[in-house]
């Protein structure tokens, strides 16, 4: 059939009725209302399976002059979606579990999620990939994550197809499909799909959000970000840390919602009919758990019972709500997580506070989604919008270690801290009252995450178990849902979302995009389940794999193959068990579950069903071959000495003021001797301010002038601060200053000696007993000429960003090569590992 809109006339690809017009039958035109010129368009212009849709041939008349000429107004039209095609809103919450939101029995008040669940459907057997970027890739492409190069994370791009982080041209994301079919598309919020080395003005930009099919983007590209000084990118440019509105401090959840609403208003103001697709992806509930007391205080005392009891309470509510069957069993606590009763009073209280903040942070995210929904409702478009809201791109994160941490960066840098040290450092940065503020980069205890994944075992990273892979999904689509508030139990997967949306809006999956034949989407539409609780399952088989943890699902059977590694352990003693030639994956312990009878994976049937175990093991390898899952642990290749080529460039030069250099693009000074040399002009009367600074007081460095003196501060992850300064004030005029770090040895976290020089003469220095081995910050950028966002040295916080009042002409980083190739290789290996460590938290 053929549908017409204001722009190009385009046919649907098959005989099925597009589902979208049911949303607004009144606006649909009869198919025979086509013009003569419309009937003459070529196949190329009427086929939505080949994108982009071609502009129709000119059907007017062009004489030598306008005399006798007739325009063809289709020439200035644009592709329009099927008439009546609805808007699409996809909301993705970060790092949260099945047992977190109230709508699924969790302890966190989520009135807006409850509302959408009440007006829509809750899917209780919806699955993700157990990791951030892989889930996002599967969500947006409708395909398996390895099949689109995202078996790992973009920070650890590897030389294997399944782990390259390079979106292949034969896997167009569904937002791009919508855009090419005439939708306005935008992504707002967290991204985490762009290879780190591509995050800069030099690009390339194919893997930025615009390249994935979003006409507009505003948010952060990193795996995580402070919510108070988020380094923002807009479209293809970093625009840095933004100011709050009305004199209030900046807060990312609020700002991203404002941006989303502004975008919607702009689209509708510009075009009264064009449908939109918005991907709204929160930084919450990922670490750092940042929220004002207004939100966390509400939960005061609500977690004093501890995680063991909380799981029981949540489980009881889940069964009352029906999101967990009455015959389900609550899985036990793994011994890697402490019993609540084993904690001393300080730890109990601090841990309770950790969860209060997490809950407030999560409810705040729900609140802002609610603002967005109110805005859509005020525009009169809520009932013409398909809402897909996924609570968690993976299970809740276990990466906070059992004690929780004041600074997640300590875990990412492999810095072992005892429970007592964590308490001391919590005290150092303001105590429990500061948990949730910008003074910390907090992550709660892994045991809270486990409780957030009730009733399942494990959590994020652990693809072998439902704690990492089963998350809440609600869908609202009034025109299709006949049982608002209902439950759905079909096995569904994040890769089903794209195909389902295309199915609902009546746009076919393209066979060709930009001339490239497309991989079929492996996800399956579950659109029929919207109207029918008993609709058949379409997703009968699915593999799971993240960082070596694996599962194979088929027809209700689930084989768990958990790599025996605790998610927060990346130390050599653990990893050596998985080295090439050592690890034999099929010798990992296996667990077998039959999910239709065992919702929570509580009864291991592996011993009694050895043939099923064998069958699913074999099937996993078949799938692994098909979708580029092999080689396992390719995302960890750097840990085993399999490294990308070493770059030959050891100097980086910044002319003038340069801001917002992405963390992955900061000169590789870790574990190296290096110099920072700056050419300055100091006016008569002196100058002050930052010459160059990276990150914050929780990890970073700053070379600055204060009280006339050259100063250098090195923040070792909030644990230690090292400060050096010149003995005398800087002279005026043209001045060269240098900071020379002489590493004791080419080894991770090497100590070393700092020397400050002015015009080549030593003027001060000091020793640093520890240096950061992996990365200062997961999100904060480097700035030349000022210190954007949270500052490195709190002594100038009241003057932030403490812009240099003289002139910074040039700053040169020289990462001195090591003495021999072996040292250089060792440091290169370490740098690669740091990328993995940073990204793994995403």
């Amino acid at each position: 059939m053929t549908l017409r809109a204001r722009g190009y006339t385009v046919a649907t690809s098959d005989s099925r009725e597009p589902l979208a017009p049911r949303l607004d039958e009144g606006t649909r035109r009869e198919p025979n209302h086509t013009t003569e010129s419309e009937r003459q368009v070529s196949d190329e212009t009427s086929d939505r399976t080949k994108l982009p849709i071609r502009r129709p041939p000119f059907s007017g008349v062009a004489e030598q002059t306008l005399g006798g000429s007739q325009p063809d107004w289709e020439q200035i039209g644009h592709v329009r979606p099927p008439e009546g095609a609805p808007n699409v809103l996809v909301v993705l919450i970060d790092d949260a579990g099945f047992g977190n939101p109230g709508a699924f029995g969790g302890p966190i008040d989520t009135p807006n999620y409850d509302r959408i669940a009440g007006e829509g459907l809750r899917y209780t057997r919806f699955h993700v990939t157990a990791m951030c970027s892989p889930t996002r890739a599967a969500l947006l492409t409708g395909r398996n994550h390895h099949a689109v190069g995202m078996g790992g994370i973009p920070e650890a791009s590897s030389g294997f197809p399944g782990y390259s982080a390079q979106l292949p041209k034969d896997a167009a994301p569904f937002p791009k499909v919508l855009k090419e079919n005439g939708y306005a598309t935008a992504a707002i919020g967290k991204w985490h799909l762009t290879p780190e080395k591509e995050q800069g003005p030099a690009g390339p930009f194919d893997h930025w959000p615009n390249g994935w099919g979003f006409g507009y983007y505003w948010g952060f590209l990193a795996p995580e970000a402070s919510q108070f000084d988020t380094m923002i990118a807009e479209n293809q440019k970093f625009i840095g840390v933004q100011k709050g509105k009305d004199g209030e401090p900046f807060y990312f959840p609020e700002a991203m919602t404002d941006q989303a609403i502004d975008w919607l208003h702009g689209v509708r103001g510009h075009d009264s009919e064009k449908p939109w697709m918005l991907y709204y992806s929160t930084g919450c509930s990922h670490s750092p758990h940042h929220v004002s007391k207004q939100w966390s205080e509400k939960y005061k005392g609500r977690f004093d019972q501890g995680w063991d009891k909380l799981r029981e309470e949540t489980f009881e509510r889940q069964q009352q709500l029906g999101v967990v069957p009455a015959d389900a069993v609550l899985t036990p606590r793994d011994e890697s997580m402490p019993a609540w009763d084993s904690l001393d009073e300080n730890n109990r209280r601090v841990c309770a506070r950790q969860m209060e903040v997490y809950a407030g942070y999560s409810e705040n995210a729900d609140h802002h989604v609610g603002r967005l929904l109110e805005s859509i409702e005020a525009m009169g478009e809520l009932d013409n919008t398909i809402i897909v809201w996924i609570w968690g791109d993976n299970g809740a994160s276990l990466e906070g270690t059992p004690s929780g941490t004041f600074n997640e960066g300590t875990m990412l840098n492999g810095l072992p801290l005892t429970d007592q040290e964590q308490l001391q450092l919590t005290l150092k940065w303001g105590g429990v009252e500061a948990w949730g503020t910008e003074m910390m980069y907090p992550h709660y205890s892994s045991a809270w995450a486990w409780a957030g994944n009730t009733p399942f075992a494990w959590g994020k990273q652990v693809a072998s178990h439902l704690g990492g892979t089963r998350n809440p999904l609600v869908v609202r689509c009034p025109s299709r849902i006949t049982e608002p508030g209902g439950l759905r139990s079909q096995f569904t997967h994040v890769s089903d979302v794209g195909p389902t949306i295309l199915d609902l809006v009546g746009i076919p999956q393209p066979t060709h995009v930009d001339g490239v034949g497309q991989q079929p989407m492996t996800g399956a539409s579950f659109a029929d389940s919207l109207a029918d609780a008993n609709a058949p399952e379409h997703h009968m088989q699915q593999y799971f794999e993240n960082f070596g943890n694996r599962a194979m699902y088929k027809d209700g059977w689930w084989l768990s193959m958990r790599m025996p590694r605790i998610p927060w352990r990346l130390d050599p003693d653990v990893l050596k068990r998985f080295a090439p030639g050592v690890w034999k994956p099929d010798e990992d312990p296996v667990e077998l579950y039959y999910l239709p009878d065992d919702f929570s994976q509580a009864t291991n049937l592996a011993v009694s069903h050895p043939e099923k175990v064998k069958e699913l093991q074999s099937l996993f390898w078949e799938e692994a071959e098909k979708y580029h899952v092999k080689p396992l642990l390719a995302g960890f290749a750097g840990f085993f000495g399999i490294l990308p080529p070493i770059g030959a460039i050891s100097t980086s030069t910044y002319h003038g003021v340069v801001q917002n250099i992405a963390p992955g693009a900061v000169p590789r000074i870790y574990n190296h001797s290096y110099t920072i040399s700056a050419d300055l002009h100091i006016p008569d009367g002196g100058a002050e301010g930052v010459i160059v600074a990276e990150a914050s007081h929780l990890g970073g460095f700053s070379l600055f002038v204060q009280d006339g003196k050259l100063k250098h501060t090195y923040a070792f992850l909030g644990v230690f601060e090292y400060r050096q300064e010149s003995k005398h004030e800087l002279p005026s005029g043209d001045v060269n200053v240098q900071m020379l770090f002489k590493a004791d040895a080419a080894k991770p976290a090497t100590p070393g000696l700092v020397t400050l020089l002015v015009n080549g003469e030593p003027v001060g220095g000091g020793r640093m007993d520890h240096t950061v081995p992996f990365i200062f910050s997961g999100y904060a950028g480097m700035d030349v000429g000022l210190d954007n966002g949270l500052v490195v040295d709190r002594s100038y916080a009241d003057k932030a960003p403490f812009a240099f009042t003289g002139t910074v002409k040039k700053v040169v980083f020289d990462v001195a090569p090591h003495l021999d190739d072996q040292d250089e290789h060792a440091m290169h290996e370490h740098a690669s590992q740091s990328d993995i460590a940073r990204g793994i938290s995403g």
Partner: protein
Amino acid sequence: MSDDKKDVLIAAYLFEDLAQRDFDAVLQLAEDKAITVEGVVLVQKDVDGEVHVKETGDHLGRTGLKIGGGAGLVVGLLAPPLLAATAVGAAAGGVMAKFGKHRLETGIGEKMDDALPPGSGGVIAIYDSGGADAVDQALVNAVKKSVAQIDGMSAKELKAGLAEAQAGMGG
């Protein structure tokens, strides 16, 4: 008071009530004469770094808000300006200067400042070193404990200066 060195213990807390518990426990030791205490002080340092004395205790385990004697010695070492309220007129400046000089010259001031970050509660006790183990065991809720020392003669002089000032005799 002997001329031997005395321990100046600074215990830092995340929670004010837990600091109070430990404060009471140390005073109980003093009351039981299990240790010889110069003074014990319960303080709260606010987020701006200002120290607030919540309670003091003396060598007999008596409590109150009085900043004199051994408790005055503790407070003076921690935050000399707090003595101003207890000394009269020109005497206040003099005694604060003495405490300030001692803090600077011995480094004990910096150590005490570092031991109590803004936002923390604290129990500070000065006692004969022989009681160290008993005190340590009593401070079960402390997140961090630091120990400095002060020689007996200095403590004696500082206490005497404070007493004179409080009596309005010094200058």
